[in-house]
């Protein structure tokens, strides 16, 4: 069974739950940026949690089923989406086309059986920072689809809210180096609306606003970080780490966006389009 990519859109990658347990080797986790939406896509088509999906950035994907396939989209709802949060059967030769997202940034295409490209270091996730994993999806690619392993769930439609447009508020916790910025730095982090810039990618959201000043000088020896970290480089403008962030970083982390199971604010941040604003609340 295969799926032919007629148009890949601005950026489509294969993603799963990522590479776990290899960070000490400099190998980051990667995986879906909005984990919750990717997991939902797999559940709705009866896949195991670690099955690979397509992460479609800013829509624009068109695929043709080369066999009868059950598919679903989750995350950012795209114009023209016919299977959003609601699995459908695509007959052999039928197309699925996604326009631009109405709101949100990343749409997940789940296919019953999973995208069955070869795994690299135990995962099918494309890490755009390290270059590990399958290549970025291109027009004309023919993607293998695996065999279904679990029964199809009896769900017509998952009632989940679409990612919001406009201003978003997410919860933040103090990070390991909050003391490098003092009370004034923290006040600046939580006291303004940050704008998501167009330099953002799977590595991180780059934010623009009033810079956060350090209250102490000196260099920080590089240290381990995970997604959700708000790292503050010398510019004072924080970078919010997402899926393909490096394993260690040399700039102090003032705070972490909450990444709780079933209620991940990092997932919500992964759906922010450039130009949207985000406010951090305690």
């Amino acid at each position: 069974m295969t799926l032919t990519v007629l148009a890949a859109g601005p950026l489509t990658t294969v993603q799963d739950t990522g590479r776990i347990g290899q960070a000490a080797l400099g190998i980051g986790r990667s995986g879906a940026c909005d984990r919750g939406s990717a997991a939902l896509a797999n559940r709705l088509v009866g896949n195991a949690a670690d099955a690979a999906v397509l992460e479609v950035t800013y829509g624009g994907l068109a695929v043709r089923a080369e066999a009868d396939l059950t598919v679903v989209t989750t995350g950012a709802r795209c114009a023209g989406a016919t299977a959003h949060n609601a699995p459908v059967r695509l007959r052999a030769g039928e197309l699925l086309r996604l326009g631009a997202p109405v709101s949100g940034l990343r749409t997940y295409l789940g296919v019953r059986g999973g995208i069955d490209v070869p795994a690299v270091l135990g995962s099918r996730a494309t890490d755009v920072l390290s270059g590990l994993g399958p290549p970025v999806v291109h027009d004309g690619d023919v993607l293998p689809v695996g065999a279904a392993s679990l029964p199809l769930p009896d769900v017509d439609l998952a009632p989940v809210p679409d990612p919001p447009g406009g201003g978003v508020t997410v919860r933040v916790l103090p990070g390991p180096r909050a003391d490098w910025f003092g009370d004034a730095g923290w006040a600046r982090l939580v006291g303004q609306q940050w704008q998501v810039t167009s330099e953002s990618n799977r590595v991180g959201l780059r934010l623009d606003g009033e810079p956060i000043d350090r209250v102490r000088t000196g260099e920080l020896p590089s240290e381990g970080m995970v997604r959700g970290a708000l790292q503050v480089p010398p510019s004072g403008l924080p970078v919010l780490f997402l899926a393909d962030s490096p394993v260690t970083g040399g700039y102090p982390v003032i705070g972490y966006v909450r990444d709780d199971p079933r209620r991940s604010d990092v997932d919500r941040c992964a759906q922010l389009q450039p130009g949207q604003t985000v406010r951090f609340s305690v």
Partner: protein
Amino acid sequence: MRVLPSGSAAVLVELDDLAAVLGLYAALADASPDGVLDVVPAARTVLLAFDPAVTTADAVGEAVRRTTPRPSASGTGEVVELPVRYDGEDLAELAGLLDVPPDEVVRRHTQTEWTVAFGGFAPGFGYLVQPGGNWDVPRRSTPRTRVPAGSVALAGEFSGVYPRESPGGWQLIGRTDVAVLDLDREPAALLRPGVRVRFVDAG
């Protein structure tokens, strides 16, 4: 030891020095607390990433406090031998900076074993330390945009081998043909924290 908060899914343990990092990492790598997905050593810290559906930051922090560090520098016992052609572009200039002949740099680099302390710069890159090495190597003032794969390099107290072509600011002293990262090999990365490395002058 200080246990610092690192969000919903990690804690960062800050230690006095690299020896303490190696000792704690060796103990944690052998027996990670329940729910811990990744243990990441660095120069002064060990990060523990955990699954918040399974455990909590408090529980992981408590387990770390109860962990007895291994005596440092004991490594894992595994030894990797890396033959090196010491013809690196920076060898002569570096020898001048250290005020020794180039042969002496090679002798010091090969005379005793190194230990992989931590990774992080790129997949498969290890920061190697040499007990008693007393290296203090300045980085290049202008980093190279392209360092070839297999380059053996020095910076600060560390030595390293570039797993793949990448930018880099370390001083290049030689080159090895051994692939320190091979995605089709198990394990893919040779230079894992705790592994001991012997550099051999391949002429």
